């Protein structure tokens, strides 16, 4: 059974259909990439999977381990091992990064019937994970994402993922706007977490990311539909030909 199974997913916002029938199957341990032009619905897909109440699912299914995710609150999905790295991470003034992580880790542990984190052990774990993404320790005490640079915000997403150790990580354009050094660091963080027990859905605009994180499968999304899937070669073709090929194809 696939870890994530999406069947005929339709979703709309303010009465406008954005996702027009998505099918996707992601096995445990796999890395899939979704590429597509601006406005094709990539972030919408990510948010619908994560449970953003701003979107309405009008048809279809999303299953995690065969369980219907659409009936779960966003926090239940997270506790079941789902993680969404935001394209635009949200600033939370007045709430420190450390506190936030601890609250998240404890919520997940509680759900699994485990005791709360031990403060010292947790700090050690957090420090290790910071090194993985070469994040400055001073960011721990700062309010979540508040006043962070674009790159710091993206690193912080990967850092949170590394601390929380999800089974399924959906990373929405974590590579966008990063310089090559930051991209290497972020990719290193992701690669270090790749394991047979963990799956990734990478949403990206740029083929460049896939030089660093090599996907098992690449999907092309245009106008709310997956119009083509293939191996990493597809990403390279895309970079050369652009999306127009698929846009025309889908119109025909």
């Amino acid at each position, binding site marked *: 059974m696939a870890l994530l199974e999406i069947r005929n997913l339709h979703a709309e916002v303010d009465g406008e259909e954005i996702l027009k029938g998505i099918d996707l199957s992601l096995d445990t341990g796999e890395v899939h990439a979704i590429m597509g032009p601006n406005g094709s619905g990539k972030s919408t897909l990510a948010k619908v999977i*994560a*449970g*953003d*109440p*701003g979107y309405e699912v009008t048809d279809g299914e999303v299953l995690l381990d065969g369980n219907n995710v659409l009936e779960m*609150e*966003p*926090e239940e*999905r*997270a*506790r079941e091992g*789902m*993680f*969404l790295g*935001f394209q635009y*991470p*949200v*600033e*939370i*003034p*007045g*709430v420190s990064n450390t*506190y*936030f992580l*601890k*609250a*998240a*880790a404890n*919520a*997940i542990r509680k*759900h699994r019937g485990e005791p709360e984190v031990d403060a010292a052990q947790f700090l050690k774990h957090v420090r290790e994970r910071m090194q993985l993404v070469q994040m400055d320790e001073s960011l721990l005490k700062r*309010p979540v994402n508040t006043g962070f640079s674009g790159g710091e915000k993206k690193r912080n997403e990967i850092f*949170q993922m590394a601390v*929380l150790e999800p089974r399924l990580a959906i990373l929405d354009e974590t590579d966008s706007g990063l310089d090559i050094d930051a991209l290497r660091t972020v990719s290193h963080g992701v690669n270090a977490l790749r394991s047979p027990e963990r799956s990734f859905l990478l949403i990206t605009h740029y083929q460049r990311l896939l030089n660093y994180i090599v996907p098992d499968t690449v999907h092309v999304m245009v106008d709310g539909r997956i119009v083509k899937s293939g191996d990493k070669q597809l990403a390279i073709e895309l970079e050369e030909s652009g999306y127009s090929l698929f846009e025309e194809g889908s119109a025909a």
Partner: protein
Amino acid sequence: MMEAVAEPKSVYLQDFQARDRSAEPAWWETRREAAMQRFEAAGFPTRKVEAWKQTRLGNVTQEHFRPAPAPGSLGGAAEQRLAVVDDAVRIVLVDGILDTGRSDLERLPDGLRVRTLAAALQEDGGVAEQHLARHADAEPHPFLALNTAFTTEGTVIEVTSGAAPEQAIELVNIMTADSAGVASWPRVLIHGATSSEFTVVQRHEGADGAAYLTAPVTEVIAEANCNVRLFHYVDEGDSGSHLGVIHATLDRDAQLYAHAMHAGGQRVRNDIYVNLDGPGASATLNGLYLVHNGQFSDIHTWVRHNADHCSSRQLVKGVLEGKSESVFDGLIQVAKGAQKTDAEQENRNLLLSPKGLAHSNPRLEIYADDVKCGHGSTVGQLDEAAVFYMRTRGVSEEEARGVLTFAFANEMLDDMPLASLQTYEREALISLLPGEETVRKLL
């Protein structure tokens, strides 16, 4: 429409005339008479009076509140909360009546004199005769006038020149469950001599269920270079009304730090008047109102720059729960000669429910040309994107809302210079929040 032909005497004028005034000095009687006349001439404000148009006085103006014949009995919870500030000089009023047994006026540090109002009135040519009702009473405020007319209980605090007592003075005002129909008129006069430095905490707390009125007036005179810290905490009962005044007059280089928190009460209004009368004086006014479902809270500030080179900072935040209402009405007035004024005012409101209603009225009256004045005001709801972000990390919706609300309000408590009161106020904040347990771990 026909005008009413003859206004009958108010019940308060009748009470005033029936009072026993034999023990009071003539100068005080004169000031009381003047105040009573002011009240009688203006009456209670209708909603046509600009300064009161958004204040929900409800039946406060119809009821006839009278001083309690004797204090009611404190519940166990109130007994527990008599002393909040560590190592303070403490005066306790129960239902508006001095409770000598629970007060602690021993061990007064050097340079600090604290007396009851009754004792201070007996001193010829003393601080009361010089200052009492000579500053605040310039303001046209109905409850202030009534306080001057009726107060019998209160505190007179004097700090001598250069003194900086470490102990804070904690004035505790408790209204018991027996206080239905009771009027409490506590009066506080604070005189800080040149270069003195001190802290006064006033707490007003009341039991639920009793419809009482408390209308405290605090008059502060800060001489040159004096540094006053005032904390005002209000948590009245769910049927209690609090209509209070803080009035400060600052001479040159004097500094006022005032921190007001409204944690509860059916209706609470505070008018904070600050007259910056000497060059270089400065005032910081921090306010936080937490308004529970069905309650009303109002902070009116009146900051007047009457001299050059003065600065003022006002930051007032509000959190409104359920169907509740608040008013922030803030004046910055810069007189003609008050050049180089630096004044700022900000009011931020968070509505936890679409049924909340927050009024925010900045008022700037600027008659000088070389000044820096800024103001801002917002009324908003929790950032839904932030709520969702937290939920995608496993935090429940309730906890996310609690944490975000706490973070918003806690800014007002974060750098409070009095740790024991800070802890106390945080508890009041946390107990209002959803997801209490998680928020507690923030600390």
